[in-house]
């Protein structure tokens, strides 16, 4: 391998590492806001409702944004091994992310914008004096800038897949499914998952752009009103899909890491392709399960939401989790933090889907959707599923790129993280089961116990995450010092 290629590899890994460390640090910071909110709800201290809702806004936006950023790094790292991606676009996305984040932070903390990430029309303009025009414009504008970066990233990835495979349909294995090509000619898993994410997230970001700009017009001129139901549909078409796609980018790490550790091939089957195609199509439609309580929605859309919610995540999850189990079974796999976290993420994903499917059932949704049951689902799904995939990849990259050793602290981090996140999501689910409303700054005494338990668990989760991020920053420091010598040796 010539020095030019080596230099490019090193540069690409540097960008990937920058994504991961920024994503990891933001996730850690957002955990602090999560802990503060739970302790406020638990009556441990009182930051006041205004600040609580600012925390709620930054926590939701920051967590999804940072996790999406780090997951994009996973997608980039593995996808570029199969197709020709543009590094400049990858860097541009990072810069636009940072600009967007600064705008959002100023909007929330300097101008007290606090509509939660949902910015549900007409809330950005109806603050009852809690925030003004500028705060809303900065927040919404920041989201637009963030979205622009991701759109560029997905367009570039789509272009590269079309260039190599001919079309996005072929990226999803349509020619295999139609019998035109044998299954052993199927694209790699990273390409299939990336194609799915490109399709759903580009759609989501376009929907988001439209509704964000409409909200901005309404904020500047509140006399200009528009259809709130369409606005809610577009808002969730954006937010749900974008958040959902994080796990579909993150799972690429599982597909790539586990076979290397198990020293077994994890091939693509027709069932795998069918599952990913189902998820591509259904992910675009199931956001309507956020509107099950809206009586003005057409009945067919709500029935469709329930049925497709069942059909969406399950095929990919079952095929991935079952595949991972079969891959690991009697393989003599070497367990370390990367493989352990990758395997743990399968558990988190599987467990986290269950409360979601329960909530997507219309009769249950009418009772549970406005309770803390829902954060119970997504903290398990994201915290024990998607974010664990990100941490798994961090350990994998650190080992691949520098040969840095793990120690007892990292192992303690894994145990601590697992237990604490079961504690956080469990406390939310218990809160939901006792009908604790979500997004409330204050709780009655009967609701406080689980909130405090969740807050304390959050502290432990933060500690574990800090250990993971610290390990990664150690790798970055070592890499800068040694010029990634061990990686160069591997490449040579």
């Amino acid at each position, binding site marked *: 391998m010539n020095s030019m290629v080596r230099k490019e590899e090193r540069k690409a890994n540097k960008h990937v590492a920058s994504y991961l460390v920024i994503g990891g640090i933001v996730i850690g910071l957002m955990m602090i806001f999560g802990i503060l909110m739970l302790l406020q709800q638990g009556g441990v201290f009182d930051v006041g409702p205004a600040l609580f809702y600012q925390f709620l806004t930054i926590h939701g936006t920051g967590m999804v944004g940072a996790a999406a950023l780090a997951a994009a790094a996973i997608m980039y790292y593995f996808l570029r091994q199969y197709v020709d991606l543009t590094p400049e676009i990858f860097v541009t996305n990072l810069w636009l992310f940072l600009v967007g984040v600064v705008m959002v932070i100023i909007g929330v903390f300097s101008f007290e914008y606090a509509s939660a990430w949902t910015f549900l029309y007409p809330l950005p303009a109806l603050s009852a004096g809690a925030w003004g025009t500028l705060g809303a414009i900065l927040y919404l504008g920041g989201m637009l800038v963030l979205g622009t970066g991701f*759109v560029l990233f997905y367009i570039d990835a789509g272009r590269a897949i079309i260039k190599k495979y001919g079309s996005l349909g072929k990226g999803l294995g349509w020619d295999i499914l139609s019998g035109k090509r044998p299954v052993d000619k199927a694209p790699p898993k990273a390409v299939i998952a990336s194609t799915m994410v490109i399709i759903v997230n580009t759609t989501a970001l376009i929907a988001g752009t439209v509704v964000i700009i409409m909200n901005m017009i309404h904020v500047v001129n509140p006399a200009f009103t528009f259809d709130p139901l369409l606005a809610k549909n577009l808002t969730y078409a954006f937010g749900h899909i974008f958040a959902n796609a994080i796990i579909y980018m993150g799972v690429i790490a599982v597909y790539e890491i586990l076979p290397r550790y198990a020293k077994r091939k994890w091939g693509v089957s027709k069932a795998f392709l069918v599952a990913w195609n189902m998820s591509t199509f259904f992910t675009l439609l199931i956001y309507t399960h956020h509107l099950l309580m809206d009586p003005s929605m057409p009945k067919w859309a709500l029935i469709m939401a329930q049925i497709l919610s069942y059909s969406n995540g399950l095929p990919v999850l079952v095929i991935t989790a079952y595949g991972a189990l079969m891959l690991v079974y009697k393989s003599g796999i070497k367990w370390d933090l990367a493989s352990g976290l990758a395997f743990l993420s399968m558990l988190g994903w599987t467990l986290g889907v269950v409360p979601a499917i329960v909530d997507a059932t219309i009769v249950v949704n009418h009772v549970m959707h406005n309770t803390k049951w829902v954060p119970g689902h997504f903290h398990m799904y994201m915290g024990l599923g998607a974010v664990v995939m990100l941490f798994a990849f961090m350990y994998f990259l650190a080992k691949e790129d520098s040969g840095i050793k793990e120690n007892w602290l990292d192992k303690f981090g894994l145990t601590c993280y697992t237990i604490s996140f079961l504690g956080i999501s469990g406390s939310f689910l218990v809160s939901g089961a006792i009908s604790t409303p979500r997004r409330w700054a204050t709780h009655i005494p009967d609701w406080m116990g689980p909130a405090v338990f969740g807050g304390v668990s959050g502290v432990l989760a933060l500690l574990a995450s800090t250990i993971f991020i610290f390990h990664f920053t150690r790798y970055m420091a070592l890499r800068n010092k040694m010029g990634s010598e061990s990686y160069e040796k591997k490449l040579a």
Partner: protein
Amino acid sequence: MGKTRYGIVLFVLLLLPPIRLGMESIMIVHMLIQLPLLILAGWLTGDVVVRKFYDVWDRWNGNGIPGIILVFFITLFWMFPRTLDEALTYNSMEFLKFISLPFVGLLLRGSWEKLHTLGKTFIYLNYLSMFGLFAWLYIDSPIQICNNYLETQQKVLGWGMLFITVLMILSIIHYVFTDHSKENVT
């Protein structure tokens, strides 16, 4: 040279008072037929202009990005209800319209082909969301937003824009799902 001639003829036809006033009397024809035809006139004549001033053009618009950014902002400007309204109220705005939109066509001629797939797709998706946004804005507006056009006319325009949005969605779906293995995707 043939294209240039067609471009000049089209521009002159669009300037003729009966045609101009007839087109501007109906909002959807004004925005979705007259304005694109002005751009088309500029695009048809653009080839000669670009070739004649190639050095200057190449220096300022080497990769097509400056040109396409100008295209974006000028067309965005003419999608606003207020500018459309003012073109009917003030002669200066009408004059600006007849100058700026053929200029957009000229810029398009000299910029579009220079863009890579990434740039073209980004611009395309930008217009897709813009047409969707303006469709919603014109259909859903609770008030009359132009002095010169009735509320029903703005709704018709909104539906026209929605139709274009749907066509653009179908077109991109067609592009990404049909085979391009034999093409040179840059």
